[in-house]
């Protein structure tokens, strides 16, 4: 486990460096400067602006400066469009919304997905199995931006049970977290079911039956861990996809989180803000992946003890 984790930990800075570098050069090499979209401004002002943001320096110097600010101070620089605020301030202000949404959705997805997947796997070919897998297929094939508005239409506009949009209290959180959770619940349910099916045909489950254990104990103690491994492996890419999904969900439900800010800044070409958000998501993802690895090691002793 130690060695395994050490290797992962070593990867973290490399991943982040690659991400930062790619996004930095992508932005700087893009045709047109950061202010090219705006109303024509006088030469002197433009030059002053360029100087203010150090855009008049050579590219390697800019890169070095950016890296240094980032590593030494965690500073992502000023926003080009929100002239008075830094990227850090904007993110710090918006992040709590997104984290709450993401956290709720993750819990919901795990709860729905694991529950449905386990039961469907144990009762293969039952009605519950068919029904839940059909729903899961829908969850996989219908994108969040279709599900979200339909939920709004049904539960907010027609039935009036829940608010349409905004972020103010538990009621507001239901639909967005459900929308965000659905595709992941679907994936998790399918993975859990498949894992369950595979595991319950293993020899060691037959051994467990032959010992006289009850089905409950066999499922919970003997089968579940093995069945969860593919689910845990999925959580890494799953979390990445959830970050992406939050862009859409925040937009649909008018949640003032990092996601909607990102979309806004991307469409406005606020390069520093876009980059800052990309880096933020990178860090989140890397940390989550690390957690997932630890959980994986915790579940599977063969990895924990470096077999």
């Amino acid at each position, binding site marked *: 486990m130690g060695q395994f984790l050490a290797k992962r930990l070593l990867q973290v800075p490399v991943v982040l460096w690659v991400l930062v570098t790619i996004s930095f050069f992508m932005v700087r090499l893009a045709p047109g400067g950061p202010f090219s979209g705006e109303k024509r401004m006088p030469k002197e002002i433009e030059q002053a602006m360029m100087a203010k943001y150090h855009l008049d320096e050579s590219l390697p110097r800019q890169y070095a400066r950016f890296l240094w600010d980032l590593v030494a101070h965690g500073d992502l620089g000023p926003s080009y469009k929100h002239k008075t605020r830094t990227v850090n301030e904007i993110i710090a202000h918006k992040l709590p919304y997104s984290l709450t949404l993401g956290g709720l959705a993750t819990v919901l997805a795990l709860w729905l997905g694991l529950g449905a997947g386990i039961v469907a796997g144990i009762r293969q070919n039952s009605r519950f199995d068919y029904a839940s897998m059909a729903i899961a297929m829908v969850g996989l094939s219908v994108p969040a931006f279709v599900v979200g508005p339909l939920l709004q239409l049904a539960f907010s506009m027609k039935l009036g049970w829940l608010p349409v949009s905004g972020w103010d209290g538990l009621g507001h959180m239901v639909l967005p977290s459900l929308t965000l959770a659905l595709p992941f619940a679907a994936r998790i349910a399918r993975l859990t079911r498949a894992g369950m099916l595979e595991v319950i045909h*293993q*020899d*060691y489950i*037959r*051994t*467990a*039956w*032959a*010992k*006289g*254990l*009850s089905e409950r*104990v066999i499922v919970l*103690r*003997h089968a579940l*861990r*093995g069945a969860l491994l593919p689910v845990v492996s999925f959580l890494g890419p799953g979390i990445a996809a959830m970050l992406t999904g939050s862009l859409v969900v925040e937009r649909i439900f008018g949640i003032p989180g990092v996601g909607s800010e990102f979309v806004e800044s991307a469409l406005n070409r606020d390069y520093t803000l876009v980059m800052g958000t990309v880096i933020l998501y990178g860090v989140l993802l890397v940390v989550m992946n690390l957690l997932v690895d630890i959980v994986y090691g915790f*579940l*599977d*002793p*063969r990895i924990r*003890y470096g*077999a």
Partner: protein
Amino acid sequence: MSESAPVLQVEDLRVHFKTDEGKVHAVNGVSFHVNEGESLAIVGESGCGKSVTNMAVLRLIPMPPGEIPTGRILYRGRDLLNMRNDEIRAVRGGRISMIFQDPMTSLNPFLRISRQLTESIELHTPLRGEAARARAIEVLAQVGIPEPAARIDSYPHEFSGGMRQRVMIAMALSTDPDLLIADEPTTALDVTIQAQILQLIRRLQRERGMSLVLITHDLAVVAGLCTRVVVMYGGTVVEVAPVDDLFADPRHPYTLALLRSVPRLDAPPGRALEPIEGLPPKLMSEPRNCPFAPRCRFVRDRCLHEAPPLEADADGRLRACFVPIRAGQAVDAAEERP
């Protein structure tokens, strides 16, 4: 044979599997019994239904696709097939234990050995907690695991194949069962380890006066370990005999072919091994003839139209054949061959 009531009596057991290709008649009317304290061998080619028969004893056949249309399996007079779920669970692992072929996959890789042992002990004996753990260490010592107290908290992957099979045996024996069913317990192991494991099973069986059903391909094992042999072919029992009689005087042509197909120390020098020609039956339909007929050297017309029942000879030996081999004929038959 034995005067006391048998521990286990299997009567007219049938097991079918529904598959995409059709119904597989894996076991077709199998009957045999296991006496108190005896060790019974079940031999036969791969796919003849040995494992399925014994899995049926503990109701471990997955249903679906499996089904058991007829049969009784009496354990001390009670039919296991009719028991309630909690009753059969008390028998499984408590009264009747099973050891499987592949020790590499039969232990749960995610749980410590200690957990896997104590869960059985706590389920079937009054021992709990530390006492159960002490019992687990004790059986590990009995099956020859060095330093059991230190190794009990290991995971299966930290053990070699032979050691894992010892753990399996310890697990099976930790609850003091009446009957141990060992399904090819050594097939997956190295030859040297095989001998050790078999010795171990034999010693423990004698010490505890437990009954043993040993499923195997290996006739050499049978000779050393068992008192009686059930020979299976194509989902049926074709012959039952005390082990010495079977080797000296096989009555069913399949038994004879089986004996000829493996090397034996007591065979006349220079005799070549004779593989059994042809393929085992597909079992895709209800057998209406002798299942061995297509490969039998002594086949008669009748064998192709009627399934021979398992009948006793004058001396009480059981065989399912219309033209049983008489003593002495076997050698002639061998010399007939071109």
